[in-house]
């Protein structure tokens, strides 16, 4: 699903260069559930942004679902985001003026689907997250857990192949966090690839595969890591740092 080879991403200001991703190489297969861990500033969000075509990278190559996305136009990247990807953010990122139905409707609007088809998909997605009774509620009228469930519904409504979740439980209590993770597991069980950034080792432990990042590089502790993902020229990392 995701195949990045020696991807680099540098943020530059007038005086400082920050290497958010350094020769970053990773592969995520279709149907995987991968938890991405690492300390703050290790490049997890940059990885998700690049993987989700929300940010461009400076070097290396990236194939998403078999397609080279290194040199796509904005329109083409937008289409891929709309049709193949679903995003879940830590702070839910719901649009406050729109009710639940209309929030979930947003990606379908940009896909140009007809009203009847959109309605059917939206009701199905909202049903999946158990919020059918809250269709006309605004985000402010919902709890944090409910808002994140709406965000999950919005992420899955377009039936994407890959869900990218950036600390989806970061703003939730443990019960709500477990609930959201269960939802993601169900989505993954239905065949959708899930990549989730988290700081919570307990939640990460529920993912079949965990990858660790440090200083924009990858440390992968899963049992079946593909050999080419490791860069033999790199020094070994202290495992303590990766937690």
């Amino acid at each position, binding site marked *: 699903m995701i195949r990045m080879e020696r991807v680099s991403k540098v943020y530059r200001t007038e005086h400082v260069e920050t290497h958010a991703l350094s020769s970053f190489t990773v592969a995520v297969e279709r149907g995987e559930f991968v938890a991405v861990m690492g300390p703050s500033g290790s490049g997890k969000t940059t990885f998700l*942004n690049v993987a989700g075509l*929300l940010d461009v990278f400076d070097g290396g190559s990236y194939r998403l679902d078999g397609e080279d996305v290194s040199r796509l136009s904005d329109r083409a990247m937008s289409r891929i985001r709309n049709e193949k990807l679903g995003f879940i953010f830590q702070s839910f990122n719901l649009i406050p003026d729109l009710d639940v139905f209309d929030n979930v409707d947003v990606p379908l609007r940009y896909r140009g689907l007809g009203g009847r088809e959109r309605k059917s998909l939206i009701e199905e997605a909202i049903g999946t997250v158990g919020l059918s009774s809250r269709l006309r509620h605004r985000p402010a009228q919902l709890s944090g857990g409910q808002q994140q469930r709406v965000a999950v519904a919005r992420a899955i409504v377009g039936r994407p192949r890959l869900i990218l979740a950036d600390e989806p439980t970061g703003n939730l209590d443990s019960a709500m966090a477990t609930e959201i993770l269960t939802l993601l597991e169900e989505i993954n069980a239905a065949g959708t690839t899930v990549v989730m950034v988290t700081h919570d080792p307990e939640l990460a432990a529920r993912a079949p595969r965990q990858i660790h990042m440090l200083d924009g590089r990858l440390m992968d502790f899963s049992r079946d890591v593909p050999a080419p993902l490791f860069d033999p020229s790199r020094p070994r990392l202290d495992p303590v740092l990766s937690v």
Partner: protein
Amino acid sequence: MLAYQLRIAAASLRRTPVLSALLVAGIALGVAVATTFVTTFHVMASDPIPDKSRQLFYVQVDNWTPERPWDRDRPEEPPDQLSWRDSQNLLASALPTRQTASFKADLTVHPASRDERPFRALTRVTRPDFFEMFEVPFLYGGPWDEAAEADRAPVVVLDEETNRKLFGGEDSVGETVRIEDRPFTVVGVVAPWSPRPKFFDVTNGALEDPEALYVPLSLTPEMEIRTTGNTSNWKPWDGEEFADFLESESIWLQMWVELPTAEARQEYEDFLAAYVREQQAVGRLTRPVNNRLRDVREWMTVSEVVPPEAKTMLIIGLLFLLVCAINLVGILLGKFLGRAPEVGVRRALGASRGAVFAQHLVECEVVGLLGGAVGIVLSAVVLRVLNRLFSEDLELFALDLTMLGAGVALALVAGLVAGLYPAWRICRVAPATYLKQQ
């Protein structure tokens, strides 16, 4: 998608009501000023008879004193009107398809009912061709014929208002109305008609309404109908009788000919030149031959129907709108950038840069249209005040459909000018930048 973008725009405007009101007010002010000046310019500069303006020609012959030109500032210009003698001589030509000389007079109308007082009515003294040449619409009847003109028949065409006054608006063709000292037979009633500018007689006020009555030109000597329009002389006339005035070099008539082809025009120009040479041979028209045949548009330009000030005000009005729009750029930029996190979310969910740009431009155009609506209402109020300043009765400046369209177009352009840069800036925002900041 447009309906969706309109919904988003409406929600965005509702979210910040004070800011939205400020934006709408900014556009409204600019549109009001611009629409007002565009309307006044439009009224003055529009082609009053577009389908015939290239076939109707205003006739000028230089009968002024050999000692000085008629207009010292424009010495090449012949006088702007004709004398009775010249107009009568020229009307004898059979070259034009139609032709008329006319002037403005003020005649007394005596209503049939003794309870009603006589009143003065502005009158166009003219020939029957006048009506067809200038496409005058009729409510009842029509113009008098050439025979009536030749026979100096006392016939009259009323305008709709005078017909209402005298005959309650009924078909009055065949009725009698006393004008000055004799009974006139009504042959026609003109439907409401008010060409702007009043091109057939700009000498006496391009923004005036057409006259209330129309009577045959041939009645002038017999009834001694005197003009109430402009009269210019370069020497006093000999004698004290009205006939002496008619024989004088005083200029007070406007003459128009209809020449449908370039050949017809050339032929008439040759005729005019020959006429002047003939008159010179008998001691008249002593200035060098300086005849002019100008079509409606040319005549409007030469007559400065649109004063230079109107053009200046038009430019000032448009610049004012531009300044208003540019002033809103900063406000819109702030508003849009404040919404960057939402834009980031929309981008993540599949909105392309183009979609974001279009969405924000739609919002600007909604502001533009709201401001335009308010501005057009304001403009209508200002135009009403302007009308009052010119006259109690006339409605010179009105927002017709064209001007309403112009107002809407100006509002859309203002919205575009104000919104183009902010919309471009917001669509360039990298989606990842704000997603963590929500």
